[in-house]
């Protein structure tokens, strides 16, 4: 029964992904789907390191980027007919190169976890990013390298001219990669990775080399990062230094962390949320990176287990059947909180706007008038005050919903 339940989750995951273009297949949405697919694999591979292996990396984009570069070079080779195979295998090419790079770099960087590992990864990330501007032959300098995915043999008559065709390839790769990464967590290697993360000393005492365990996780993570890089190359048909520098490494850390490190589904959530924010918010506001930064800090401060952790917090209440008692208290807190957000965002946008009249939620605000500002400040502070006043009732409801009745406790003992 549990088996069927698990299987049905996976099948639903695959079906949702394959059905996405049926809902909307405009160029914008397909481009968002593709970005999501790439981000999901990349974020999951990062979680293999940080979430499951306890290795904080500041240079994970290296494996993504190297895989992507080799994938683009393979596309170029196809153009000159040096190699000839269906382009659906391109992500695997990227993955194998990512694996190769991870084997080489992991052989010396996985001695220790913690700060030493973080610093080595930072150093190597900077080293590779800087040398990509020196070795122009492979990395193409600032312009990067570009290829053309339509030179490979057609697959069932599909020649991959359109992005939506790539999306189906990407969806299948996401599914395969996710399944394998999930299965990895269930293998002894994956379990030992957790043990080494939590207490390397104990793991060594029962006869496992902490370094070897880390090395295996590291290589697997490099493989999947490379697959994501290969998908990137297939989707955009070009890749530049930007895709392996510190900014990309930082972005994947943001995704995994906001989503929730401790849970397998966390990075998937993070990848979806951040990609959506990236593509939708950036159309409306120049300030979206600022909002992202604020959101990230708030997540670290108040939701240390990320969004997935926030959802999982409700498990007890759900099992107890008291989740519905929380709905009203949540609503009471959410309304002023959303009003506060609207006020704060409005004020930020107003001060950033260069026009005299600022259009916000159907209102026309005069950015130079003191009255507008005063009203905005009162509105924002008022809703903040209301939010803080509404917190105690939420806390009480939370306590109530999560208290396990005495009877159940006796049952357990």
């Amino acid at each position, binding site marked *: 029964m549990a088996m069927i339940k698990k299987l049905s989750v996976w099948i639903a995951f695959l079906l949702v992904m394959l059905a996405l273009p049926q809902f909307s297949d405009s160029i914008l949405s397909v481009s968002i789907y593709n970005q999501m697919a790439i981000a999901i694999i990349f974020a999951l591979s990062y979680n293999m390191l940080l979430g499951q292996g306890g290795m904080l990396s500041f240079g994970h984009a290296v494996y993504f980027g190297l895989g992507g570069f080799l994938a683009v070079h393979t596309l170029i080779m196809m153009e000159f007919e040096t190699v000839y195979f269906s382009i659906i295998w391109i992500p695997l090419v990227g993955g194998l190169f990512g694996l190769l790079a991870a084997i080489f770099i992991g052989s010396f960087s996985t*001695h220790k976890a913690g*700060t030493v590992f973080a610093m*080595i990864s930072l*150093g190597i990330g*900077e080293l590779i990013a800087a040398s990509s501007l020196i070795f122009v032959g492979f990395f193409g300098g600032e312009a990067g390298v570009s290829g053309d995915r339509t030179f490979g043999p057609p697959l069932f008559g599909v020649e991959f001219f359109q992005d939506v065709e790539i999306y189906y390839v990407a969806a299948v790769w996401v599914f395969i990669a996710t399944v394998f990464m999930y299965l990895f967590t269930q293998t002894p290697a994956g379990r030992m990775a957790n043990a080494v993360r939590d207490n390397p000393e104990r793991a060594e005492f029962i006869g496992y080399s902490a370094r070897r365990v880390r090395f295996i996780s590291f290589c697997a993570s490099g493989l999947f990062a490379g697959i994501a890089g290969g998908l990137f190359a297939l989707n955009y048909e070009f890749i530049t230094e930007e895709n392996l520098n*510190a900014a990309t490494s930082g972005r994947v*850390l943001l995704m995994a962390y906001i989503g929730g490190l401790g849970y397998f589904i966390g990075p998937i959530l993070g990848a979806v949320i951040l990609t959506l924010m990236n593509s939708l918010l950036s159309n409306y506001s120049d300030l979206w990176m600022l909002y992202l930064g604020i959101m990230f800090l708030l997540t670290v401060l108040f939701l240390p287990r990320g969004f997935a952790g926030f959802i999982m917090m409700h498990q007890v209440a759900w099992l107890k059947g008291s989740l519905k008692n929380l709905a009203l208290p949540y609503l009471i807190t959410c309304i002023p909180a959303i009003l506060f957000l609207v006020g704060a965002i409005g004020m930020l946008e107003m001060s950033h706007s260069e026009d005299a009249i600022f259009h916000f939620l159907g209102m026309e605000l005069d950015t130079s008038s003191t009255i507008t500002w005063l009203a905005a400040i009162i509105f924002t502070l008022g809703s903040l005050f209301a939010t803080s006043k509404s917190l105690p009732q939420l806390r009480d409801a939370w306590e109530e919903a999560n208290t396990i009745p005495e009877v159940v406790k006796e049952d357990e003992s």
Partner: protein
Amino acid sequence: MLEVFIFATLNGLVTGLLLFMLASGLTLIFSMMGVLNFAHASFYMLGAYFAYSISLQFGFWLGLIFAPLIVGCLGAAVERYGLRRVHESGHVAELVFTFGLAFLIEEAIQFFWGPDTKNYQSPDILDFPLFTLFGQEFSAYRGFMIGVSVLIFIGLFRVLTRSRIGIIIQAAITHPNTVANLGHNVPLIFMGVFGVGTALAGLAGVIAGPVLTTFPGMAIVLGSIVFVIVVIGGLGSLAGAFIASLLIGLLQSYAIASDVGMPDLLNFLGVSFERDHPLNDLWTMTLPQIAPILPFLLLVLVLIFRPTGLMGNREE
């Protein structure tokens, strides 16, 4: 040849001492709280921007005094209301928090000051050549930078080793519980050290802003190098940070000033390659070209062969 060498040394000294101002705060904070502050260079950038805004109204000298103070207060607030809270979630969360803070500060600076480079000027009084050597001028402002850095270095050393508060700080690094039992407010000391560390970074920003240009990317340019220094010098070692700062400053300065490269080495060895050799980029590499990656190369080598750094004795 000699003039190139002398000027490279002087420039390396300026950079090295500047780097030390950042590295000293970072390494102090690390030895106290065991957290590598990713946002340290962002406080340096904040220092430059605050000083720029103050200098527009009140001139350079008031900026030199007040900008580091503001940055220090901000830093103390970050420790009090941010880091202390995250501390419960463990080391990784702390690192990630400072990483996010660096990200946020960069965005906030673009929000308040805009994405363009600011015309932050050094004061007119220091706008003369300090001395002329082989027909090249060495500006008084660079001399002033060296002076301030050396003063800070001496001051920091004296405070830490000779004053009562310095002794308490040193004790709090190794035995925080004992120090707390003796009646000292250890969290307050932590906050103070964080504030002073960030204020030092701010001061470095104030004096570096006019020379290294004040723009929103200035934290990234210097940030990772400061990390390299702290790690190479040995985490938590002030003396190590000093040596590593000068080492990196001079190394980069010499590499940029030199004009040797792989072609010279190959000539010396009597080897030659065709122009269309696949590794052509490697055979034509020059030392000035790879100057930016030298610190990172050094970092990786040090971490592999001596993970504790040059002067560090902290085993994880």
